[in-house]
């Protein structure tokens, strides 16, 4: 679906990516994690064709994204973090744009709008930020594109909406679609995102499925910090202890714990996952 090879990108003198390589496949919901400023949004924009790569290559569904060909755009939807809707009714917005997407499903849009409890007869400008975001997510999922990119989709959503978001994203996922979600709110999307990609300033620190992670790392809640463990984090009721999985038994991955572990043990984690 997405093949990135030796990607280099910079904003004037500020280098964001140098030599990033990764492959993203259909049938998965990728969680794109990383600290502020490491280039999560930039990566989504490069994949969407909003930014041009300086060197290296990025191919999406066999297209060069920056060419922005209609056939490519009709199979991709990018939801920005701070979506600003135009001064028009949501239903009209969806009707006028929907006919450009070959697999747009108007009934699905109505259903999702109802599920999100957003009135489609209202203008975007009369909706709250969270409601606007839900409306654009409903439209994005109704286009039935093969690739959906979401930048911080749960930002601005209230608690019930986050649960609805998890449900609709999970329903939208199929063997032919690839969803990439960039987020800081890992708890909002826990149990949904798999594989996990963690970026840092030097590129990809981790790109692994939950199954691979749980086979190689063990996450436990203990009363005391683990001696010799890779990472200990104080938590309610003790410590989250992350260590190498030597037993071979799979354990539940704590994504927040994983993220902190990876950031503090970059070389070790690379060694563990490259072997």
């Amino acid at each position, binding site marked *: 679906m997405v093949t990135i090879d030796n990607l280099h990108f910079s904003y004037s003198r500020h280098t964001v990516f140098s030599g990033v390589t990764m492959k993203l496949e259909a049938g998965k919901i990728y969680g794109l994690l990383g600290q502020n400023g490491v280039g999560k949004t930039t990566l989504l924009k490069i994949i969407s064709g*909003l*930014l041009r790569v300086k060197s290296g290559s990025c191919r999406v569904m066999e297209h060069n994204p920056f060419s922005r060909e*209609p*056939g490519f755009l009709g199979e991709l939807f990018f939801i*920005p973090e701070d979506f*600003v809707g*135009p001064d028009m009714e949501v239903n009209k917005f969806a009707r006028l744009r929907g006919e*450009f997407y070959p697999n747009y499903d108007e009934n699905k849009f109505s259903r999702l709008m109802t599920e999100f409890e957003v009135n489609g007869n209202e203008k975007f400008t009369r909706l709250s930020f969270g409601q606007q975001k839900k409306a654009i997510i409903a439209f994005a999922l109704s286009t039935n594109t093969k690739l959906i990119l979401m930048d911080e989709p749960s930002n601005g959503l209230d608690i019930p909406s986050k649960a609805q978001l998890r449900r609709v994203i999970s329903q939208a996922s199929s063997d032919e679609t690839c969803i990439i979600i960039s987020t800081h709110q890992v708890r909002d999307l826990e149990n949904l995102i798999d594989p996990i990609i963690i970026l840092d300033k030097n590129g990809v620190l981790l790109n692994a499925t939950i199954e691979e992670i749980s086979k190689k790392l063990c996450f436990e809640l203990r009363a005391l910090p683990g001696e010799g463990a890779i990472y200990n984090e104080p938590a309610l009721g003790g410590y989250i202890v992350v260590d190498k999985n030597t037993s071979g038994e799979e354990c539940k991955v704590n994504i927040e714990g994983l993220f902190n572990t990876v950031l503090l043990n970059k070389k070790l984690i690379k060694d563990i996952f490259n072997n």
Partner: protein
Amino acid sequence: MKEFFDINRFFKLVRKDYSERLPVTLKIVTIFSLLLAGFWVSLIIFNGSQVDAEARVLYIYAATFLAMLMAPFNLYKSYNHPKKGLDYIMLPASVTEKFASMLLNSIILLPFATFLGVLIADTFISTVNPSLFNGFAIVNLGSAGEIAEKYGEAVIVQLGFIFGNFLFKKNKVFKTLMSAAGLYILFAMVIMFLLTTVFKSDFEALKSLNTSIKVNSLSDFEHITGAEGITSLLKGFYYSVLVIFYVICPVSFLGGTYYKMKTQQY
């Protein structure tokens, strides 16, 4: 080829663009029509004198020209906006279709709507109150050829403003006006330099001619080509100016706009 241009998709895009931009178009038409109506009301209140149809024709042309200059900044203001522009750029249509639709809306639909709207307002007022609005502007518009010539020159200027709209991201109107003024001054200085230095003898020869040259538009310079005492160099210069204004400028503005649309990063 379908990735470059598809006629069905283009019509869908035109319909979408027009439908979304109709409120703005109507607002502009209403403003210029109300200005005319306001002028008429002020004539009634302050006992103003009769206004001839010729003067109102000038207003109709001026309003249409202003609407043309305003069109890109009102209809396609957010195309290169880092957030608001994403909606349009990510729409599954080719750059060529978006470019053509933008030109259609800015160059034809909005000016035509403004021209028609103000003309209807004028006709209505002239019918209701012929003592103040004497005669009908509609019968004094000039020949089709004259209208086409004026429209063509207005389009060339408008293309510069369309390019400015895509070239600048912030303070578009101000920067475009400043750039246009800067280009105009530069152009005038070059012409003044050439006429007063390089073609000094030609200019002095013009003094002895028993001819008066009235210049309303650039094409009026054609009249000097028949004048005696004008060197072929000056005529060549005149044709160069024509080529710059009628060919190089519009082609550059169109090419620049298309290039900016195609390579805009967000």
